[in-house]
């Protein structure tokens, strides 16, 4: 069995609800989707047990009523995993991953500034990457945002 299939089987054995969404897209490319409330445990399992110890970046997506967040993880052997989670725009709160990846702080700040997500546990700091005088309730990468 290939290494990708091993990772998939190990993860599904631990978290049965991932059976449908955990896919081997093609060799060395995995993707999974997890709900917001189960995200932390799945994330911790993948990072610590399955040795996905590189965070490439975090992508934010405006999906209409939801905000999507894709965590691009990588491990040795050139295997990457796109772990996706969602949060409704009415309550766009996710948990920080800076305890595991301290460098993720700038990605999370970008999500906060550009998409208007709330990252719980992210330490306080100045605005990044927008200017300090940017209006508080405007998020330029949301699809309904218009330049005034």
């Amino acid at each position, binding site marked *: 069995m290939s290494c990708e299939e091993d990772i998939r089987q190990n993860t599904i054995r631990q978290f049965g609800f991932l059976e449908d969404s955990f896919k081997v897209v093609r060799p060395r490319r995995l993707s999974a989707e997890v709900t917001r409330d189960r995200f932390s445990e799945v994330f911790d399992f993948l990072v610590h047990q399955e040795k996905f110890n590189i965070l490439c970046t975090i992508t934010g997506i405006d999906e209409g009523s939801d905000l999507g967040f894709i965590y691009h993880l990588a491990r040795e052997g050139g295997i990457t995993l796109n772990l996706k989670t969602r949060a409704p725009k009415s309550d766009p709160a996710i948990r920080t991953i800076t305890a595991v990846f301290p460098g993720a702080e700038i990605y999370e700040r970008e999500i906060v500034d550009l998409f208007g997500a709330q990252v719980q546990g992210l330490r306080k700091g100045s605005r990044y990457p*927008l200017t300090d005088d940017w209006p508080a309730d405007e998020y330029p990468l949301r699809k309904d945002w218009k330049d005034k």
Partner: protein
Amino acid sequence: MKIVRKIINWARIKSPWILHFNSGACNACDIEIVAALTPLYDVERFGVQLKGTPRHADVLVCSGPVTKQIQDRLKRIYDQMPEPKFVVAVGACACGGGVFKGCYNVRGGIDEVIPVSAYIPGCPAGPKAIIDGVVKLLASLEETKKPSVPDAKRQDKTEDGAGTDKETNSGDAP
């Protein structure tokens, strides 16, 4: 006093020290500016030297659109330069925003924030175009003796127009 001014103007034209500032460019114009400073194009024959601080520079060579983050810094650097000062906008983005015009984080061209003396279009502007633009700026100082910059114009006016004979004499005396 007129002779002194002539000498100062001559010296200024023969040694325009420049400061290169990237206000949000994609790096292409920066590479071309650096290429223009190499011995291959040899701008030092015009007396052009790259300086590390705005306090030593006569010409501010700007590349790229002005982002909202950089506009205060650009203004501050411009204010640090001694008079008379000139700004050269290098590249399409510096001239009017280019492809970045209308972005949420971009203010526009250089002239939205500070007065510009010379515009050099191109994407990117080549070293030859940059040298041509700088030389034309210097030539305009030589011919008209009234540079096209608003600040420099004002200075000329106070020295030539507003100054009476009496003041000119008192200036000549020492």
